């Protein structure tokens, strides 16, 4: 499953599962992530899964690259450590000031914004990973007609709750942050809740997301 193991600096192991992004590869990444996390090996300070890579960081005072590499190579993947799969409905309003990049998308994708939304809301999305900023889910895959590049110059501030598109993915900005994705709308619900220390994320890797279109009035009521 792991194609190649390298060192990333002197205190991280870089596990390469391939160059493609698909659910099978991502499932393997998450399987390794869950197994390593469950088994709590000494000295491991972070396990960071992404689409097709897994980075295992460790405390150089406790262990070394060669030791952690061996742990990963000899890891017995227990099937019982299953990925918990949920379907989560996320309401989004795509009206007024929320549809920040609608004209840009209309131009570069050559599609009417209404049509774009129709396609977008029709699909269900898979959470490949979370991160960049706390709790941000990276969801895919979007319809081929909706795949746009990042903005050439990232915005300094993307509003909290913004839903963005880039390539085959969509994401949700869990709080105001810099960012370069094409923003189509905004959700009034809290995706990251720091008060819930044991379970701060509404959407976790492996979950499925269905977006629901709401009006400005409905948005204001939920908010």
């Amino acid at each position, binding site marked *: 499953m792991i194609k190649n193991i390298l060192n990333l*600096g002197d205190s991280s192991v870089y596990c390469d599962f391939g160059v493609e992004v698909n659910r099978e590869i991502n499932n393997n990444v998450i399987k390794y992530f869950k197994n390593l996390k469950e088994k709590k090996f000494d000295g491991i300070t972070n396990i960071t899964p992404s689409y097709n890579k897994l980075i295992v960081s460790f405390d150089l005072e406790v262990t070394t690259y060669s030791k952690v590499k061996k742990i990963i190579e000899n890891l017995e993947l227990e099937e019982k450590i299953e990925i918990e799969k949920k379907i989560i409905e996320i309401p989004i309003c795509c009206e007024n000031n929320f549809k920040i990049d609608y004209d840009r998308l209309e131009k570069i994708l050559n599609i009417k914004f209404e049509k774009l939304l129709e396609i977008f809301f029709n699909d269900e999305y898979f959470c490949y990973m979370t991160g960049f900023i706390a709790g941000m889910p990276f969801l895919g895959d979007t319809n081929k007609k909706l795949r746009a590049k990042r903005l050439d110059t990232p915005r300094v501030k993307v509003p909290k709750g913004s839903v963005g598109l880039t390539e085959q993915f969509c994401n949700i900005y869990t709080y105001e942050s810099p960012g370069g994705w094409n923003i189509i709308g905004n959700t009034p619900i809290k995706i990251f809740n720091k008060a819930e220390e044991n379970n701060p994320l509404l959407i976790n890797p492996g979950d499925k997301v269905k977006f629901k279109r709401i009006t400005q009035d409905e948005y204001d009521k939920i908010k």
Partner: protein
Amino acid sequence: MNMTKSSDNYFEIERAGINTTYQDYGRKNLNHLGIPISGIMDKRNYILSNSLLKKDLNSSVIEFAYQGPLLKYHGEKIFIVITGDVQFKIVKMNKKIIIGKPYNVYLIENKDKIDIQSTNKSVYGYLSINEDIILDKFWGSVSVNTKAKIGPNNGQKLSVNQKIILSHKNNPVPLAKLNYVNSKIEYIRVIKSTNFDFFSEKSKKNFFNKEFKITKLLDRMGMRLEGNRLENIVNNNIKSEGLVKGVVQVPSDGNPIIMLADHGTIGGYPKIANVISADFDKVAQMTPGAYIKFKAVNLNDAEKLFKFYNIETNNLVNQIS
């Protein structure tokens, strides 16, 4: 925070300084949620600050950058120490001024002021107090990450008129000291990273032979460099993947960015190198406008250099008298 009782020991913040935050070693095993370790920028100076006061090594401290805070103390006597290359003074109640020396423990009495004026040719310094700072922990840490707004004080830096509440244990500590001068930084040692071969032969050479200027875009999250654009001949974007402290990323403009304590946990720019653990403190202390030179080492060297770094730190702790 403002609900002080008359019996409390506390500092009143008369000037907050530029970026004054509560810190400790940070929070582990949360990268997958998008939460980096954070924690102190200069580990050795953090360890020394707590060691000088005989405190637990993970005790909360006040980290400041460039200009530190001006604090007025209220309460029973306490002991403090400041570490880093820091200029500060203590203004006693009777107006007597003591010019402060870093790595020296000082007695602070009711109504004394601590004025942390500046860090010299460096960025960060630490204030540790023999009493505990009363703070809520978030995921086991008091480390404040202002970008994610995580940590005590609503995840924000300290501001004027706030109070820093202290415990009331009254454990006296000796007026310990240490002779230590932070060394001059000549170069930052790195290991070539996973995308090193994305760059042209000329750029690979330039990365190690030329100097890079540290720009003003420098904070606890990262350090942007400029001066020698690195030419990527393979691909300017990789599929987003995990980031760790010390990664040197190169976006399409060719100017490297070093990831520091509060880095984003995922990124899509190619990784040219990683700063070795033994040099994390050094890189964190480099100032805007200074020049950085990279030197390549291999993994084996990096591991040895980290051991050496630890031995040096322990020797310093043992020299405290």
